[in-house]
């Protein structure tokens, strides 16, 4: 029980810290969002009109009261689930904007994460099963080397080869300008066509962690006493590998997967930025560079909560599955 209480306490404390950090970041910044907006609108080589800045400032509204009052106001709006109005998309609300990007990110990254996990775990298990053979070294060395390539560079090369040179896929975007978003087959196939390259880039680097993790775990479990005993009892190799090796070795990967799913939203900035994919990662980057504080705060909070919840669930799951953990942490 104490273990679960501690995890809940940690969850709450971290959440509070993230929320407070979120509140502070915009207030530590120099510069005025209204000025930044007008400057961006006018371009760097045009003079900024003070009247326009005044109008935009009026439009956005300024926070009132001292820091403590602002903090209290901020907390109470959060509790009510109000994140305010986006600066970049005024007068659309932050909640509306997150709704616009959420499905895209979840679809692209969710699918590729699951595929990466499956592919990675299978390849890792295969490598462990055939350990110290050519298969093993091809898989481990190959994935290690691919893992050293910078992701954004791979993505650029994919665009260069498949979109710019061969013209097989579009260079980026979530769907074409001529299609009308909706639950139609036409739109769906268009969206799929657009997501091939980003998904491919994620699938090249995605499975690597799972491959290495699965292989090492399984090599270890196959070396444990019970696996040796099974071998002595004359069980077949594939059967040992499956029941004594893979089944146990996959456990840490499963909890790792829970955490990875929670991290989906935070890890998509690069891929969405490069492929101009209309998800939350690019929205986050845009919000940061536009000083769209309300949108940035909400996205950051969203991302942190995703990670926290996933970690919390993984911890609890682990505690339920493996009583040793509870004792260890409580000790």
């Amino acid at each position: 029980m104490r273990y679960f209480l501690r995890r809940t306490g940690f969850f709450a404390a971290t959440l509070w810290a993230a929320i407070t950090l979120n509140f502070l970041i915009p207030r530590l910044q120099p510069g005025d969002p209204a000025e930044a907006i007008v400057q961006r609108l006018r371009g760097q080589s045009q003079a900024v009109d003070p009247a326009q800045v005044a109008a935009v400032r009026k439009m956005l509204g300024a926070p009132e009261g001292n820091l403590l009052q602002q903090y209290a106001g901020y907390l109470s709006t959060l509790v009510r689930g109000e994140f305010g109005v986006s600066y970049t998309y005024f007068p659309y609300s932050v909640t509306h904007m997150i709704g616009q990007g959420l499905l895209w990110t979840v679809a692209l990254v969710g699918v590729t994460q699951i595929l990466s996990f499956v592919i990675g775990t299978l390849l890792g298990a295969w490598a462990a099963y055939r350990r110290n053979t050519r298969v093993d070294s091809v898989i481990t060395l190959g994935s290690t080397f691919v893992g050293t390539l910078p992701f954004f560079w791979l993505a650029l090369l994919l665009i260069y080869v498949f979109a710019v040179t061969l013209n097989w896929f579009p260079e980026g975007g979530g769907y074409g300008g001529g299609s009308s978003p909706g639950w139609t087959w036409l739109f769906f196939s268009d969206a799929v066509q657009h997501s091939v390259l980003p998904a491919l880039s994620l699938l090249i680097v995605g499975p690597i962690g799972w491959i290495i993790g699965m292989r090492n775990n399984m090599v270890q479990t196959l070396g444990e006493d019970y696996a040796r005993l099974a071998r002595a009892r004359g069980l077949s190799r594939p059967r040992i590998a499956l029941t004594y090796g893979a089944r146990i070795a996959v456990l840490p990967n499963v909890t790792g997967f829970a955490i990875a799913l929670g991290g989906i939203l935070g890890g998509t900035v690069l891929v969405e930025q490069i492929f101009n994919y209309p998800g939350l990662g690019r929205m986050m980057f845009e919000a940061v560079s536009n000083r769209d504080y309300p949108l940035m705060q909400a996205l950051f909070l969203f991302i942190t909560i995703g990670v926290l919840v996933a970690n919390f669930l993984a911890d609890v799951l682990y505690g339920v599955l493996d009583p040793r953990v509870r004792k260890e942490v409580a000790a």
Partner: protein
Amino acid sequence: MTAELSAAQASGASRLPGWFVILWRNRKCRIGLILLAAFTLVAVLAPWLSPYAPRDDSYAASATPSAAHWLGTTARGEDVFSQLLYGARTSLIVGLAAGTLSTVVGLVIGLTAGYLRGVVDEVLSFFINLALVVPVLPLMVTLAAYSPVKGLWLIIMVISVTGWAYGARIKRSQIITLRTRDYVTAAKFAGDSTARIIAREILPNMTSLVVVGFMGACLGAIGGEAGLAFLGLGDPATTSWGTMLNQANSGGAMLTGQWAWLVAPGVAFAGLMIALTLINFGVDALSNPHLRED
């Protein structure tokens, strides 16, 4: 990770200070060390090796590779090859500095938490766990975008601030198991000070863990710098492989067909990463008998 830990514990007590010799014996690791030495040499000798100054923009813009410019020129008329050589400097400096910084921070916090336990541990562990769950990339982006100054050291700070926690957690667990060992207890009874016990009895047994952690931090830092620079959050005045890729992308390298400008920084980056990864193989094998090569 568990495997690593137990192995580190097993080998910890008996390892010789000549770990470099052991690393050298490992074939993969040896290749890595030679590669790394080559990169270091290029980085140190960049001013003498490169044919032009990396920011000298007095050449024809957007040129494809030629005898005068082996990898062509940028959209501003700078020599790509010279930039590539100088980029090795930036990457190594970032790797070394941010790797050291986050290792030291992780070590200090991990050691303090693990050795003192109690309230100190509670507080420090909270911060470690907090830093572990905060989404790193968004945090890096935010910090880099909003800092009042830009520059290489900012990037190093940002990477260190976001990257120390993992090492701290591992080191904390390691010291918790080490501090109950007989020789530590003996030293305590002998009246040795805490600092002395940590320095003389505990640290030597953590060398491999620290080295592994350091290599990991270097890898992460070099990748982090490249990513931030690619997103345009680096210092555009610094020549790094990330800024090169950023400028190649925005400078129309695809448009003008300058594949060399686009490919070279990525290949160089991958080469350095491979060098570090190969060395890591050796270090891993050193501390983890399960992974040791036959």
